[in-house]
């Protein structure tokens, strides 16, 4: 794979919530085209793309869908100029894709619990869908400020009905599901597990303060493996420029991460506290 952007054409767009759009497209990474124009690029849920908007910006966005050999999806929340432009595109229009980059979730044999806040569900979704495909029954905990912000809500409800996954959801305003914070719901879900069985796997993605709380909870419940996906400012997306490093271990979110285990995160004093700006300046989260 050569890590340079390749233009793709949008095949499908789904307006998931009022500020989140999923974009689907066919894509074979540069240098991965084999003789039949096909690709056998390895992908691990949790990996991300650098998405290029010519003349505007290139931003990191997680893979939220993958159907081998070459059908991909991303889910983008509008937070600024680049995400707005991306979500404003139409089917048939183009943007650039570089990757997949970074490390992903360890897909262990346990069905696992997947805890996402807002657009944080995006990187978890390919892992959840893989579990479903493998006839495991993952537990999904989804949360958002209000009902219309709940990402993939319809899809997960359907999976709950048809494939028997355990699906829980909460909104801060109580407009859908339990009223409260996602972390509160997470505790309730964990408490449902029989007290003697050690919970094997918890994957989380969302606002970093939420992840800090999730780690606390995972440790309290002695979850065997906790993993969370982080976000940092990025340039190279491949471990070279150092902008995304989290101290003191000097781990690169783009290459060593974005998915890190709870054990590692505990050693990162930056976790939940500090991020770098584009200048390299470190500021409070």
């Amino acid at each position: 794979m050569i890590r340079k952007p390749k233009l793709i054409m949008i095949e499908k767009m789904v307006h998931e919530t009022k500020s989140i759009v999923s974009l689907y497209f066919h894509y074979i990474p540069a240098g991965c085209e084999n003789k039949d124009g096909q690709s056998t690029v390895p992908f691990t849920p949790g990996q991300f793309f650098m998405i290029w908007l010519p003349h505007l910006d290139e931003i990191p966005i997680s893979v939220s869908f993958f159907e081998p050999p070459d059908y991909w999806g991303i889910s983008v929340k509008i937070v600024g100029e680049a995400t707005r432009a991306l979500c404003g595109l139409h089917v048939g229009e183009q943007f650039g894709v570089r990757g997949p980059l970074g490390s992903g979730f360890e897909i262990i044999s346990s069905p696992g619990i997947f805890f996402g806040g807002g657009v944080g569900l995006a990187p978890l979704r390919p892992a959840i869908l893989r579990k479903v495909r493998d006839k495991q029954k993952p537990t999904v905990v989804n949360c958002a400020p209000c009902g219309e912000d709940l990402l993939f809500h319809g899809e997960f409800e359907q999976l709950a009905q048809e494939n028997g996954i355990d699906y829980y959801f909460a909104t801060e305003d109580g407009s859908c599901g339990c009223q409260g914070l996602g972390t509160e719901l997470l505790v309730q879900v964990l408490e449902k597990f029989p007290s003697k069985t050690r919970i094997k796997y918890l994957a989380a993605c969302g606002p970093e303060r939420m992840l800090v709380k999730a780690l606390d909870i995972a440790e309290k419940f002695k979850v065997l493996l906790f993993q969370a996906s982080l976000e940092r400012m990025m340039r190279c997306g491949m471990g070279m420029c150092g902008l995304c490093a989290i101290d003191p271990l000097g781990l690169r979110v783009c290459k060593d991460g974005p998915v890190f285990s709870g054990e590692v995160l505990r050693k990162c004093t930056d976790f939940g506290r500090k991020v770098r700006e584009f200048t390299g300046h470190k500021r409070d989260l």
Partner: protein
Amino acid sequence: MLETNIASLKLKTPFILASGILGVSGSTLAKVFHAGAGAVVSKSIGPVPRQGYNNPSVIEIFPDTFLNAVGLANPGIDEFAGEVKIAKDQGTVIILSVFGGELQEYGEVAKKAEKMGADAIELNISCPHAHISCIGADAQRTSEVVRLVKSQTHLPIIAKLNPNVTDIVEIARSAEKAGVDAITAINTVRGMLIDIDAKCPVLANKSGGISGKLLKPIAVKVVYDLFESVKIPIIGCGGISDWRDAVEFFLAGASAVQIGSALWKGFEIFTELAKGTKQYIVENKAKNLQDIIGRAHKA
């Protein structure tokens, strides 16, 4: 066997982290140092914070060959003090890469760097895509900036050269005359990638600097030429990705080498470099690193 000296700077290994690669965080610099680097060069630091260029700012254009236009993004020397402290606290030998808009700013930043405990200064007078830092294309201005920084600090001073010039030897000579302690050769070569579907250059800054594999033959040629023209130590840089590449630079005349782009794969490269180079020295019946430096010049 691998010890080498860059002026008064004594290095345990001749493998140095190049500027701008993982050089933003003090912890990361320390981590690289302890992975086996003889020293690490920080990201180029200026007098005040700089945003640099927008993304895309770093891409891969061929396997292991990259194009970047980061545009000297940096938090400014004052803020960077904290990172230097973290690195120094862990015993890191740190070379601070310095740039400025005006000549005078080079001096100011260098002075501050000395106070922070940096072990040496590398003058980035060579960045090919940031207009403010192209002193290195001019012999006269190169010599001025060296003299000025020399007068403001006691640290060893290394000039990092721009390969995008007609006569790099002339520039190296004028830096040497002005009292520079060593030379790093080379910085990136100007390049551009146009996406034929998007119909525009890929980098936000349109063009950038080529680094990685492709740079090696260009850099080796420069080091070879400099070895015949200057007496101060030369630090080779450009496209080193394994011990064979490093040895090529030593034979060409480099007293040490910097590794940049290849770091993206991981820090283990330093172990491989040391092991391979040692083995080469032994198998070729040389006493030590010094014994093979410049060997390609002997008929």
